[in-house]
C-alpha cells in the first residue's frame, strides 16, 4: 500500500462540497421548523425605555416576539453569554488570568436580553419567531425600541490600559528577564515605535446559524462549530441538562477562523425560543449582525523598544501589547508570550495590557496572538536593520537562538534560518538593492520586504475510535472538526497509512459532540492532537491483532512473540522477517473486525490539562513545556509595487518557506499556508472594521465595504514546505500550520512598502491614503 503521509491527497469531501450534497448546519430542516430573527440595539450604551412590538406581531407569519421580559428560561440561561469565549483558554493553564472554558464555556459575563441594559451596539434586544425567514426578519425590522442613551466610546484609549488579570491571575502577564534599562544603556541603535492594528471581523462565507429542536428534555442543536464539545458543555450547563441529553451536530463548517469557537448568544436565544414555541427554530444571522453577535479581532497597540549592539545582537527587548476588550470581559490574545520567544536577548520585558471600550467581546481570529504582534515585532526588526545598516535577514540570523530566551529550554526544533535561506532562494532576495526607492519599473515603485513567521505548537489531549473490518474498511470517529481545512482527508490518510488501506476505504465521522473526545479546532491543534490519537488507535489495532494471530495455530505469524511484531505501512512484521498484511491478519481472526480507542497524551500534559480538554476547554501543554519550547517557523518575502499616479499598493509576489514538522498532506497544507498568506495580504492592505465614533457602532458591516482581498489582489504566491523532524511534539511529529501563514505577512508588506517609498507605515491596514503626497 502506498505511503499516503506527506503526499498530495485531494480532499475526500470535495465531491460532496462541489455537488452540494455536504450537509451544513443550516441545511437541516427538522419537521415543523420555524424561523428566527434577531432585532438588535441601535445604541451602544444605555437602557431600554420601551419596546413596541405590536407591528411586528401583526406582520403576517410572525408567531412570537420575545423580549427581555418574555424570553423563557431566563433564569436558567442567566449569566450565560459568550461574546468572547474562552479569552483565557489559549493561555497556558497555570497562568490563566480569567476563568477558562472548563469552568465556564462562555467565559463571558454578560448575557443579552437579560434585562433592559444595553452594553454595546448591535446587542440582541428581541427574538422573532415566524413561519418564514422573510417574515421573521420583517418582524424584527418592525420592532420599535426607545432608549435612554448614555455616553459610549468604541475606540479604546491606550492610555487607560491595565495589566491583564489581578494578583495571582496576572502571573505571566508581566515578564522580566535581565535588566532592560541596562540593556538599553549600552546599545548601538534603538528602535522605539508603536504599531497599531484595527478591529477586524472574520466574515466567514458561511453565515452564523443555529437550529434547535427539543424533544421533551432532550435537545439537538445544529450549528457550525469548531468546538462541538464546548458548545454542548455550555448548553447543558445553561439548561441544567445532562450532557447526554444534548446533541450538537456540525459536520461541515464554511469557514470559522475563530468565530465559531464558543457558545454564542444567538445560539442560546434560539434554543430558548425553540423551547418556548414548542417547535424547532432555525436562526440565520444576517451579515451585519454577524459583527456583533459573535467575536472579532480586537484593535491593538504594540509598543516596542529594541536595542542592539553594532553587530546587531539584541541587548534589550521590550514589548507592551495593549489590546481592546469589552466592558465586561478580559479578552486576552496574549501575543507577548510569542514575541519574547523569537530572538536571543539577555534583557527582556513584556507586558500584556487591555483597554476597555463599548463593544461586544472580541475573541480569536486566525493567529489571534500573532498577527498583530508580529506586524509590530517584524516591522521593528526591519527598522532596526535599517538603522544598523544591516540586511534584514542578517539581523534575524544574528539573533537566532536554539533556546527559548526567557524560559531557557531548547526548542524542540527550529528551522527559522533554513526557512529564510529557502525563501531567499526562491524569491531572489539577492537582487534586492537596499536603498529606499532604488527599484522601479515604469510607473511602479518596487520594494522587497521580509518577515519571520511563527506559530506555537499547541497540543491537547485527544481520543479517537477506529473500527477496522477484515473486508478492508475502517471507520474513524472523533469529535474533531473539519472547518474547511482538510481534516476529514488527513485523518483518513493517517489511518490508511497505518492500516494499509486506500484512503477511500477510511470513512471519517466528525463534528458531533457525542463522538470520542477531541479538542477544539483552534490554535492549529487538530492535525497534531486528534491526528496523533488516530495514529495511536491504528497502532493499538496492530498490537491487538498481532497478539491474536501470533496465538493462532496457523498463519504467517503463528507462534511469534507478539511483543516483537511491528506495524509498518499496514503490514505486521516479525523480527525474523515473516510478515502479514494487517487486513489479512484481521480477516483471519474470529471476529474479523476490531474497534479500539486511541489516545494522545503527551508527557508534558498534566491531569488538569487533560481534564480541561475533556470538559470542552483548552488544556494545551504547549507551546512551552518544562523541557522544550515548541513552535513552527517560517519566513516570508514579498514584492510590493506602489503606483506613481494612483498610489495603489499591489503585491505581485509573495513567497513563504515554512518548517512545521511532518506535513501530512502536501495539498491541503499548501492551501492552509497559502490561505494564511492571502489573509496576510488582506490584513496588511485591505481589512478594517471601520467605526462610527459618536454612536460607537461598527460601520462597514458588509463584504462590499469591508474589503477582503479578491482574486485580482493575489498574484504569485509560492509556498515551500521544508523537511523537519520533531519527535518531541507528538508521535506524528506534526506542528500546526493553519495559522502560520498569516503571521509576518503584514510586516513583510509594510517593510516592502518602506523599501519602495521610504514611508514607514505603522498602522494597518496600509492604504493609498497613507501614501498620497508621500509616494
Amino acid at each position, binding site marked *: 500500500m502506498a505511503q499516503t503521509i506527506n503526499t498530495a491527497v485531494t480532499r475526500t469531501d470535495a465531491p460532496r462540497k462541489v455537488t452540494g450534497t455536504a450537509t451544513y448546519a443550516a441545511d437541516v430542516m427538522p419537521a415543523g421548523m420555524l424561523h428566527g430573527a434577531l432585532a438588535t440595539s441601535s445604541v451602544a450604551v444605555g437602557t431600554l425605555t420601551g419596546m413596541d412590538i405590536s407591528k411586528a406581531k401583526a406582520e403576517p407569519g410572525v408567531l412570537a416576539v420575545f423580549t427581555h421580559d418574555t424570553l423563557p428560561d431566563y433564569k436558567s440561561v442567566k449569566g450565560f453569554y459568550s461574546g468572547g469565549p474562552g479569552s483565557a483558554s489559549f493561555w497556558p493553564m497555570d497562568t490563566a488570568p480569567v476563568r477558562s472554558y472548563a469552568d465556564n464555556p462562555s467565559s463571558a459575563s454578560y448575557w443579552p436580553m437579560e434585562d433592559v441594559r444595553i452594553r454595546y451596539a448591535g446587542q440582541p434586544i428581541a427574538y422573532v419567531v415566524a413561519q418564514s425567514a422573510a417574515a421573521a426578519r420583517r418582524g424584527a425590522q418592525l420592532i420599535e425600541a426607545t432608549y435612554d442613551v448614555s455616553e459610549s466610546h468604541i475606540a479604546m484609549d491606550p492610555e487607560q490600559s491595565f495589566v491583564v488579570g489581578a494578583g495571582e491571575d496576572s502571573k505571566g502577564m508581566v515578564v522580566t528577564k535581565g535588566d532592560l534599562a541596562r540593556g538599553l544603556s549600552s546599545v548601538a541603535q534603538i528602535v522605539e515605535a508603536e504599531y497599531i492594528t484595527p478591529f477586524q471581523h472574520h466574515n466567514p462565507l458561511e453565515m452564523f446559524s443555529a437550529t434547535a429542536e427539543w424533544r421533551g428534555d432532550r435537545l439537538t442543536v445544529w450549528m457550525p462549530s469548531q468546538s462541538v464539545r464546548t458548545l454542548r458543555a455550555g448548553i447543558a450547563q445553561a439548561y441544567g441538562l445532562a450532557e447526554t441529553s444534548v446533541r450538537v451536530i456540525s459536520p461541515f463548517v464554511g469557514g470559522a477562523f475563530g468565530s465559531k469557537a464558543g457558545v454564542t448568544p444567538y445560539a442560546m436565544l434560539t434554543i430558548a425560543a425553540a423551547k418556548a414555541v414548542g417547535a424547532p427554530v432555525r436562526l440565520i444571522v444576517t451579515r451585519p449582525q454577524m459583527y456583533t453577535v459573535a467575536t472579532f479581532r480586537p484593535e491593538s497597540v504594540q509598543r516596542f523598544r529594541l536595542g542592539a549592539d553594532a553587530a546587531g545582537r539584541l541587548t534589550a527587548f521590550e514589548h507592551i501589547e495593549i489590546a481592546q476588550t469589552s466592558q465586561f470581559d478580559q479578552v486576552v490574545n496574549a501575543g507577548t508570550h510569542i514575541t519574547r520567544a523569537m530572538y536571543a536577548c539577555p534583557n527582556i520585558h513584556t507586558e500584556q495590557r487591555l483597554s476597555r471600550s463599548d463593544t461586544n467581546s472580541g475573541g480569536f481570529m486566525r493567529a489571534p496572538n500573532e498577527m498583530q504582534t508580529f506586524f509590530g515585532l517584524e516591522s521593528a526588526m526591519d527598522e532596526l536593520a535599517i538603522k544598523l545598516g544591516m540586511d534584514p535577514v542578517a539581523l534575524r540570523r544574528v539573533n537566532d537562538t536554539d533556546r527559548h530566551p526567557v524560559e531557557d529550554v531548547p526548542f524542540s526544533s527550529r528551522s527559522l534560518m533554513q526557512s529564510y535561506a529557502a525563501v531567499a532562494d526562491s524569491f531572489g532576495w539577492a537582487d534586492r538593492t537596499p536603498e529606499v526607492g532604488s527599484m522601479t519599473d515604469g510607473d511602479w515603485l518596487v520594494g522587497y520586504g521580509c518577515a519571520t513567521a511563527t506559530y506555537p505548537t499547541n497540543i491537547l489531549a485527544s481520543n479517537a475510535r477506529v473500527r477496522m473490518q477484515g473486508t478492508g474498511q475502517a471507520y474513524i470517529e472523533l469529535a474533531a472538526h473539519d472547518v474547511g481545512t482538510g481534516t476529514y482527508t488527513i485523518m483518513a490518510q493517517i489511518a490508511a497509512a497505518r492500516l494499509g488501506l486506500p484512503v477511500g476505504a477510511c470513512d471519517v465521522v466528525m463534528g458531533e459532540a457525542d463522538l470520542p473526545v477531541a479538542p477544539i479546532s483552534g490554535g492549529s491543534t487538530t492535525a497534531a492532537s486528534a491526528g496523533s490519537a488516530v495514529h495511536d488507535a491504528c497502532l493499538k489495532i496492530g498490537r491487538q491483532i498481532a497478539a491474536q494471530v501470533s496465538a493462532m495455530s496457523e498463519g504467517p505469524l503463528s507462534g511469534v512473540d507478539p511483543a516483537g511484531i511491528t506495524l509498518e505501512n499496514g503490514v505486521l512484521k516479525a523480527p525474523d522477517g515473516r510478515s502479514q498484511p494487517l487486513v489479512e491478519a484481521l480477516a483471519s481472526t474470529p471476529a474479523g473486525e476490531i474497534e479500539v480507542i486511541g489516545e494522545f497524551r503527551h508527557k508534558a500534559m498534566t491531569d488538569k490539562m487533560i481534564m480541561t480538554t475533556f470538559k470542552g476547554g483548552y488544556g494545551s501543554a504547549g507551546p512551552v513545556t518544562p523541557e522544550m519550547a515548541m513552535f513552527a517557523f517560517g519566513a516570508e518575502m514579498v514584492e510590493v509595487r506602489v503606483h506613481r499616479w494612483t498610489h495603489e499598493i499591489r503585491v505581485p509576489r509573495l513567497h513563504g518557506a515554512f518548517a512545521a514538522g511532518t506535513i501530512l498532506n502536501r495539498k491541503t497544507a499548501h492551501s492552509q499556508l497559502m490561505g494564511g498568506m492571502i489573509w496576510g495580504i488582506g490584513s496588511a492592505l485591505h481589512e478594517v472594521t471601520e467605526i*462610527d465614533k459618536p454612536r460607537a457602532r461598527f460601520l462597514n458591516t458588509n463584504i462590499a465595504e469591508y474589503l477582503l482581498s479578491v482574486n485580482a*489582489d493575489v498574484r504569485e504566491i509560492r509556498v515551500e514546505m521544508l523537511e523537519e523532524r520533531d519527535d518531541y511534539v507528538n508521535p506524528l511529529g506534526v506542528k500546526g500550520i493553519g495559522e502560520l501563514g498569516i503571521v509576518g505577512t503584514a510586516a513583510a508588506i509594510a517593510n516592502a512598502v518602506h523599501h519602495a517609498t521610504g514611508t514607514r507605515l505603522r498602522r494597518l491596514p496600509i492604504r493609498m491614503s497613507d501614501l*498620497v503626497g508621500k509616494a
Partner: protein
Amino acid sequence: MRNFAYYSPKNLADAIAAIRDSGGDILAGGTTVVDLMKIGVREPSALVDITGLAELEGHEIGADRIRFGALARMGHLADDKYLVAAAPVLTESLWKAASPQLRNVARLGGNILQRTRCPYFRDTAYAQCNKRSPGSGCAALDGGETSHHAIFGGSSACVAMYPGDWAQALIAFDAEIHTQGPGGRRRIPFADLHVLPGDTPEVETILQRGEIVTEITVPIVPALKASHYLKARDRESYAFASASAAVGVELDGDAVRDVRIALGGVAATPWRARAAEESLKGKPLTEESARAAGRIAFADARELEGSAYKIKLGADVVAGALMTAKSRANGGK
C-alpha cells in the same frame, strides 16, 4: 423586507401605467433597489419589472453617436471590442465597476441611477439621515466617518457621494438620456440628470415618477477614441473608487484641441471638471500641465474630516489618466 406587489409589463405604455397605478419602484437588474429593500431602506409597495421591454435592449455604434439601450447589461458592453476601440472610457468604467456577477445582471439604466453607499443611509439603525428620512439630520456630518464622502457638491444637509463609475464617462462626453413617462418623451443632457443635494438630498434626479430611461446616447468626438478611465482603489477589483477620472483628449500637434475630465469617488453627483479642462486647451499636454490640471480640478474641493487624501489622490489620478489618454492620442496604448 416589506411585502410588495410585482408587475412585469411587456411594453413601455403598460410599464408607465403600472408605475402610475401601483406607485411602485422600477426594477431593472435589482442590484441597487432589491439590496436597499432587503436592508429596509426602500420599502416600495410594488416593483415594476421592466426587463421584459425588448425595445430597451442593445447598443449600436452609429456614425455620429453611440446608442445604449437602458436595459443593456454592464457586463456585455465591456466585452464589445468595437466599443473598446471606439470609446475606451466607456468600457473601462464599466468593467472596473462592481464584480462580474453584478455586471452580468445590472443594467445601464439602473447603473446611472444607483444610490449612494453612505453607510448611514444604508443602515436604518441611524436615526439621522436626511436622504433616507428628510429632516432627520445627517449622521455623517454629526461627527461620523466621512472619509468616503463627497468633497464636491455636498451641502450642510448631506455629503453623500455618488459612487458610480460609468456616469463619469457619460458626463465627460456630453451624453444624453432619453426618457418616456406620463408626460411623454424627453431628451435630457446627462449633466442635468442628477441634482445637488441642497436642502433636499432625498431628491437625486430630475426624473419624474414613472419616467423610464429608455436609452443613453453619446456623441462621437475625436477625444472619445483617446480616452481613459483611471480608477484608484485599495483593492484591485470589486471596490468603489477612492478617486477616479474619466478623461479624453484630442491633440492638434502638441496642443490640446479638446479635453474632457470628470471625477469619480469625490462628488455628490457625476462631476465634470471644466476649469481643469480649460486650463489645458490650446496648450501642450505635459506631465507638468497634467499635474496642474489635476490641482485645478480639486481647487474648490471642500475637505471633510478624513478625506483630505482625496484631494491629492484625485489630482494625481487626473494627471495619470491624462498621460494615458495622451499616449492613446499618439497611437499608444
